[in-house]
């Protein structure tokens, strides 16, 4: 668990910190609590995506050939670019936290904005990918068309593809919203080395969303790609 130990002086000062909520005795206790809470939330998220991953893995094993054939319709290049974009955005969100620890107010804002922009790039590329699928009639539904044996199983592949990447995109949008909400207090100088808990928790969340993609990309795009 990530936690930075606090200087005694900072701790003493924290007793009167405006951000201290009434139910806590100290800012440190508050920080530990919210970090632990965030980790627990991420556990629930892991279990949430875990259900989907389980379904995917089960079908991937059962319908190996069809799923491999269907996955060839995904754009590995765009997926790879998106992976790079997301990893870079994880770096920028970490730099925003680092800026807070260094008491660099403008740095926080800069890196928050950059992270949001990178998120936007990811979603933009994702939209391009989705529209390709739409043009190729690969969106599950009445217009679904797939050349090859067992199109109904390919449809399951694309159902899972859209649900998994769609939910991931939804998490990205929520994350971008939270990051955007942090810009104003950051600009006002609310976060510095003594208090940057909201930044840290949002950063954890952003890293998590990144990691989900790190699993989605090989599972959906790469598995069986050598066979094409």
């Amino acid at each position, binding site marked *: 668990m990530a936690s930075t130990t606090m200087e005694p002086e900072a701790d003493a000062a924290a007793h009167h910190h405006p951000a201290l909520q009434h*139910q806590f005795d100290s800012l440190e206790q508050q920080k530990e609590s919210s970090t632990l*809470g965030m980790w*627990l939330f991420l556990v629930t998220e892991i279990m949430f995506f875990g259900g989907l991953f389980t379904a995917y893995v089960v079908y991937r094993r059962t319908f190996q050939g069809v799923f491999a054939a269907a996955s060839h319709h995904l754009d590995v290049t765009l997926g790879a670019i998106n992976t790079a974009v997301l990893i870079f955005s994880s770096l920028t969100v970490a730099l925003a936290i680092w800026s807070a620890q260094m008491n660099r107010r403008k740095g926080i804002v800069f890196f928050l904005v950059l992270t949001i922009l990178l998120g936007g790039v990811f979603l933009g590329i994702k939209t391009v990918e989705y529209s390709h699928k739409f043009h190729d009639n690969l969106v599950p539904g009445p217009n679904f068309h797939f050349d090859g044996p067992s199109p109904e199983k390919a449809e*399951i592949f694309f*159902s899972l593809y859209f649900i998994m990447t769609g939910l991931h995109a939804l998490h990205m949008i929520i994350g971008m919203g939270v990051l955007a909400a942090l810009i104003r207090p950051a600009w006002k100088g609310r976060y510095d080395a003594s208090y940057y808990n909201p930044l840290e928790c949002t950063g954890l969340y952003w890293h998590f969303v990144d990691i989900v993609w790190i699993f989605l990309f090989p599972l959906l795009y790469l598995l069986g790609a050598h066979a094409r």
Partner: protein
Amino acid sequence: MDTTATVSDTTLASPETGYERPNYLNAAYGMRSWLLTRDHKRIAILYLISVSVFFALGSLFALLIRLELLTPEGDMVQPDTYNRLFTMHGVVMVFFFLIPAIPAVLGNFLVPLMIGAKDLAFPKLNLASWYVYNLGGIFTLWSIVHGGVDTGWTFYAPLSTQYSNTYVISAALGVFINGFSTIFTGMNFIVTIHRMRAPGMTWFRLPLFIWSHYATSLIIVLGTPVIAITLLLVAAERLLHLGIFDPRLGGDPILFQHLFWFYSHPAVYIMILPAMGVISELVAAFARKRVFGYRFVAFASIAIAVLGFLVWGHHMFLAGQSIYLSTIFSILSMLVAVPSAIKVFNWTATLYEGSISYQTPMLYALGFIGLFTIGGLTGTMIATLGIDVHVHDTYFIVAHFHYIMVGGTIMAYMGGLHYWWPKISGRLYPAFLSRLSALLVFVGFNLTFLPQFVLGYLGMPRRYWSYPPEFQVLNVLSTAGASILGVGYVLPLFYFIWSMRYGKRSGDNPWGAIGLEWDTPSPPPTDNFHTIPVVTRPPYAYNEQEVHDRTSHPEARVG
């Protein structure tokens, strides 16, 4: 409530003195002060109201089900109506009553009090949880009002995804949303228990109520998201005609069952573990004795939480699951009986050389031990593969899980409510009436569900709107029991409401109980403690002098 306050602080609050010390109830007035509160105690009261509404609704459905089953011919309602009744009974009772009841009402009120904290770690999240709960409830009620759902609370595919033309999506979304409220509560408890214990409150000084809520919260956090995604897939499948669980489109309906039970079996432990925590508190308080084998009872909670995640396949012995898998799930399911047995034996042994009083909460607690024993033993019977072949999906199963959920969870919930009611309201309820209701619940319950064990072994399948005539006598007995049970549940509703205004003042500690929650006034002040307590000893350290000193003024004390 009268609120003129001028008398000195040492005087016992009573109608005669007309004095009430500042507490969480009189801290502020008006709807706003309740609807925007962040006080865990007020949120517990809000939950108490919501949960009671859903309990009443679920009970109404149960009553209609039992009335229909009075005669073998389906002559009261149409089969489609009957199917909606038992589905809504299950959905409302499981997701909107049994799962939140003890954690969200008693747990919310007591977890901070018992560990010596000013509030839960995330008060806003706690309030949000109540709103989310009600939002989920509204979705579910919407589907009820518009004609209901008829898939069974288990939402089995492909019935739920392709064949049912009822309001599956809104009901599933209701349950999905409700899941968040449960998750919020669970996260709040874990963080609070980890980070906000009073000085000196080590893990082995925690009351067993806290241990069991900790174990429960672990299950909530790990399990609930899985049902969320499962129900989301069901809704998506209906809405977009996907084929993930539809065999006609290559999907696998058994995968749905795996995902569903991966949560829904541990959910049983979400319901029973907090109940076990309540019982540990009640038995200790009314035997005035430390719970026998404290550490064993504490670790048994954790063991149940862990094992609970490894047994879901016992719902699928007959669904075409491989025999090897079934064997593994069978033995693991039976292992759950060991920590459960440890608890039952330890509670019973706590009575040995105790100083037992038969107050209403204790009657519920002793009833719980008996009924839970039956529920647990029949549970191991149906985990036995050879028996499950015959009794699976019959009334034997129905009887078994009602012994755990009604005989276990609701008995404990009622017992806990009676025990902490003076803490919550500062008032006492009528002793005779409350004992009578406890007795009615116990007798009515057994009369309702014992015959169902026989019915089940005779082969009466569950979810039947009509049935062969030879099953009638047992069904009549069951319906008769249900009406007695109903009276037992209605009585407390009246005398609790009555006691809020007319009940005798209880003083701070009418039972002479020991525990941090009793170290503060009843009802407690908004910040729980005037000074944060320092803990220096293990829980349940009963001694005569202290009991004497701490018990409320003689006119308000009980027992």
